[in-house]
């Protein structure tokens, strides 16, 4: 997901986007400048937020998932090479929409390391009806 490219659409829809990563501020800032210059990044090297939001490590079943390998091949075919990470690459990702009252309105837990919600599905979550 290259969300930063869609920041204007999210802003037009009335949403803000904040990324969360496992690294320290220096690592996060280097990542932000290279891959996501328009989005703020929270640094969570101790995984306090990851734990609070229930994000777990990759399971053996997820690693064996055919969709993971298929999506990996598709990514490589697009010319995206995986980078070398100092973080825990076994960490799973997720996306949450939080309204202004602090209530979760959408929660997406990735099923395997290649699984992410589409930008369209996120933009389809209308601000209307949210506090």
């Amino acid at each position, binding site marked *: *997901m290259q*969300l930063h490219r869609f920041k204007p659409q*999210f802003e037009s829809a*009335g*949403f*803000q*986007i*904040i*990324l*969360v*990563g*496992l*690294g320290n*501020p220096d*690592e*996060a*800032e*280097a*990542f*932000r400048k290279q891959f996501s210059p328009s989005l*703020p*990044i*929270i*640094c*969570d090297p101790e995984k*306090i*937020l*990851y734990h*609070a*939001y*229930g*994000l777990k490590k990759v399971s053996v079943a997820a690693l064996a998932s055919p969709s993971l390998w298929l999506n990996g091949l598709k990514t490589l075919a697009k010319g995206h090479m*995986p980078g*070398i*990470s*100092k*973080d*825990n*690459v076994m*960490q*799973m*990702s*997720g*996306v*949450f*929409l*939080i*309204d*202004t009252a*602090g*209530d*979760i*309105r*959408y*929660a997406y*837990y*990735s099923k395997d*390391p290649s699984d992410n919600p589409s930008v369209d599905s996120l933009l389809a979550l209308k*601000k209307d009806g*949210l506090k």
Partner: protein
Amino acid sequence: MLEPYQKAPDAEVIFSDRAVHRLSNLWIKEPMFLVFLRHFG
């Protein structure tokens, strides 16, 4: 696992520019997507 209509966990967080904010002070401005990455890289 968290589900819709549960309260979002709040915390004081540090950003890549070393600014410190409480999450609730951010989501109170407008609905917020919080996107957890697997790793930097």
